[in-house]
């Protein structure tokens, strides 16, 4: 399992590649847990992940839980149809921003930031 991280416009983009078994899922979880507090917006690209175990699905939920505690947002990109279905059936999908591509993910995150800014302005005005 390879893990790479880069920054696009303040959004942390994590690309995972390889098999996501229970052991590598734990590594991924640790590394994302590390970067989550520093980044308000994280996009995780799953399109190069080959096989998915139930442990890795739990990892995703844990990532969500950590992001939620911090008030940060996670977008996911490139979920296989199977993973998409499993997350949908368990309701976990509702927790994530789903994007079609990394660039869409970054754009979605920026839109969220814009939205929040506008709301803040609106609140400030009233």
């Amino acid at each position: 399992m390879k893990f790479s991280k880069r920054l696009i416009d303040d959004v942390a983009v994590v690309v995972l590649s390889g098999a996501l078994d229970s052991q590598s899922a734990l590594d991924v979880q640790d590394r994302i847990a590390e970067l989550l507090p520093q980044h308000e917006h994280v996009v995780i690209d799953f399109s190069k992940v080959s096989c998915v175990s139930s442990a890795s699905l739990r990892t995703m939920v844990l990532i969500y839980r950590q992001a939620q505690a911090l008030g940060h947002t996670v977008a996911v990109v490139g979920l296989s149809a199977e993973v998409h279905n499993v997350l949908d059936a368990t309701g976990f999908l509702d927790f994530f921003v789903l994007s079609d591509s990394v660039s869409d993910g970054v754009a979605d995150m920026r839109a969220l930031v814009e939205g929040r800014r506008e709301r803040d302005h609106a609140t400030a005005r009233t």
Partner: protein
Amino acid sequence: MTTPPRVRDRIDSFPTHNIGGYGVRPGRVAPLGATLVPNGVNFAVFSSRATSVSVVLFKIGEPEPIAELAIPADFRIGRVWAITVFGLEYEEIEYGFRVTGPPDEHFKDRFDSNVILTDPYAKVLGGREVWGALPDYDNRYQHRARLAFDDFDWENDRPLRITPNDLVIYETHVRGFTRHPSSGVGNPGTYAGLIEKIPYLSQLGVNCVELLPVFEFDEFGNSRLVEETGERLLNYWGYNTVGFFAPKAGYAATGRFGMQGDEFKHMVKSLHAAGIEIMLDVVFNHTAEGNELGPTISFRGLDNSTYYMLTPEGYYYNFSGTGNTFNSNNPVVREFIVQCLRYWASEYHIDGFRFDLAAIMDRDEHGVPLANPPLIEALANDPVLRDCKLIAEAWDAGGLYQVGSFPNYHRWSEWNGRYRDTVRRFLKGDEGVVGDLATRIAGSPDLYQQRGARASINFVTCHDGFSLMDLFSYDGKHNDANGENNNDGANDNNSWNGGVEGPTDDPGVNRLRQQQVKNALLLLLTSRGIPMVLSGDEVGRTQRGNNNVYCQDNELAWFDWSLTDTDAELVEFTRNAIALRRAHTVLCAMHHPNSIDPTDCGHPEISWHGVRAWQPDWSPTNRVLGVMWCGHHIENGSPDYVYVVANAHWEEHELELPVPDDGWGWHLAADTAGEAPGVYPPGTERPLADPHTYRISPRSVIVMVARPVAG
């Protein structure tokens, strides 16, 4: 943000011994089963006579174990063997127990150290992850216990606590509800599939789904091939529990990932968000281990004579009709059942339970009915289950029939079998039923005087027996597809085919059948007590005369969604009839109505009528009954009159209508023989041409509501 205080490691989070390469320490005896603890897993196993107990560990799905850890005898306290094992990859393993009995084995023991036993407390079970996938019988560990996290994010979800007054139950089967190709859902036949149909349930107006068994069971239990067709019959209903704490994996789209618990909880959360409760049909009267010829799965190999009622010769009492009888009033077994239900109520947010063959739970270890069965009392008073509905199927296969007399502690409700039988007999046209029908409509005060009508779960059909359309399409059962020469299933169905057995082109017969279905639904929804509708009856579903589809995992038993189009009229009828019920507090109230007029409004809360107003005819040959409900007596009740007339006669009658009150006139709310769909939505009832009379058609039911008359 403040830094959380540093928490010191617990001393017991480190091993004290080493067994088979694993760090271990003496475990905790409670809770029984496997529990995640800091750095490890605690295993606690009860057996009153075992001489050795091992924890057997497997990698998920693997036939051979990776380790077998014998629990040292000095780790045992009382009769509980307990060990904490450290360093387990607990998302990757399955576990079981190997239990050895004493050399001087008692003839009631059935220890078998060749068998890996599953944990009766297992919260996730592998081995049957995909419904209907042929099991690998070479794998000697079939029902494989796994560890559960139980860390679902419920957000703000809580059990709904809908009052009995507002409850309309819808009995359905997880798989059957959406498995039919016409369902159009993404994951047919699953918990996730059911979620997709919640809008349908909401639209229909039901607010409680009661699911046929969802505890892990083996659909291959007693599975067989039909000789003529080669078709495999499966245990579709699932009344043969393998794992009482584990949701059925094969009902989950995510069963292959072991995420059935999460998917189930997502279903509950989604139902609750739509204002719909969830009730489970639970089967504590027997287990999947069958009789002495059945498989050893867990209980039998742990402690046969504790968990089962045994004859003096050591065989199994069979009050369940399925081979064995769970010994539910034994203190250990009772605790098991209480823990199980608490788990479902708290961990899965379940709103209520319907107990299959509940009369068995009144019996002592010899099968003798108890006046004060400790299990029933414990459940009635349990602090965790306090808000859960408890419903007894108050009979068993051993001849104990307790409808109206089930020990209830003012808490339990019952499936009112009397209601079912009486409504059926009345509608079929039997003589001498009018008097009993009146008692049933009034909430069966003869049976439930102390508890009120909330004790009466009224129903005309349930999963067990004919569907409503078949009830009026078949005189007798047609169970040949079950491969038992039509010997299975009930014979006393009180059914009537309307003149032709089975499907017919005769429009008159078909019209009559449709009308009889409407009659039954309308009576059900205007009776005191909690109504239960069988899923599919609202679309006229047929099982082609099969009244026992327990083994039919096919179109015979599945909900055919195309019927929601072809029989849209019936769906609309049902929806409107539920809305009619809800629009009138006097119909939903749960006390037994009075025939006196305490508030001096001019009418008692309930009054009986015949073809002539105020003249009920209780003679055997009469088949017309009118009941006027007057809402003055209901707490906060505004003036509200509802007049229901049922005519099971094959002739029409010119009804003389009772006068509701000065300045009020009757409006037609429903006529099952009238303009489609047969019930008007509340607020659109039609004024009568003649306020004093109404011509009721043969074999029909009408409902009138009173409205102030202009001028």
